[in-house]
């Protein structure tokens, strides 16, 4: 499953650690603005993936994170989400099969989204394809996902 939040709504966005053992993870929970939290939505099993690649020239390399998810259905609320995401930048969280959660995007380099609809044919897939691109690796987010609006 995948989850979306907007950086502008986050009152306290946490960074990854600074040592070799902690740089690959964020261990402190993000703090959201009042009434805000992560939003969850469903994505079809085995129809999504993400990867990180190394880009840039020698002595100046960086990481680029990209991914795809497919959300089934043809719905007004997903049309609305599509319009919002196509005009927004933010963070996205993905949960892997063993419960590991990764954060895609950061305050400096948020995810840029594209979400498009396809009807498919009678034997195909009807739904939305969400893709994202951001610079930087996708650290593991150990605090877990928060679907509870901040008080």
């Amino acid at each position, binding site marked *: 499953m995948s989850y979306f939040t907007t950086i502008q709504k986050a009152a306290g966005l946490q960074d990854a650690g600074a040592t070799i053992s902690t740089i690959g993870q964020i261990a402190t929970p993000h703090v959201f603005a009042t009434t805000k*939290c992560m939003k969850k939505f469903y994505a079809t099993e085995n129809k999504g993936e993400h990867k990180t690649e190394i880009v840039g020239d020698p002595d100046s390399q960086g990481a680029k994170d990209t991914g795809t998810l497919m959300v089934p259905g043809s719905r007004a609320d997903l049309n609305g989400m599509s319009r919002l995401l196509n005009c927004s930048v933010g963070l996205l969280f993905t949960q892997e099969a063993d419960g590991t959660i990764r954060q895609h995007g950061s305050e400096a380099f948020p995810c840029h989204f594209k979400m498009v609809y396809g009807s498919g044919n009678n034997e195909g897939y009807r739904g939305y394809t969400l893709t994202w691109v951001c610079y930087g690796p996708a650290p593991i987010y150990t605090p877990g996902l928060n679907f509870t609006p901040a008080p």
Partner: protein
Amino acid sequence: MPDKKKILPAAIADQYQVLDGHGVGEYHFAGHVVNLDRLTPEDADFLVKKGFPYLVAKEPKTKAKNSTVLGAAQKSPD
């Protein structure tokens, strides 16, 4: 009608409180779906031991520091 505000179960509210800035509701942690308003003491202990950051142990209450001092020096009569 607005939703009733969720609170921690009485059985764990003495021992734990929610992390500052966070509410009582649904979290997903290490493959578990956690609903804080329905947590048992055993679940709470298990999650906190596993590193669940949204539940914080409360400080144990201590006895009052200001208590009557016995055997205070008495002023001798003139």
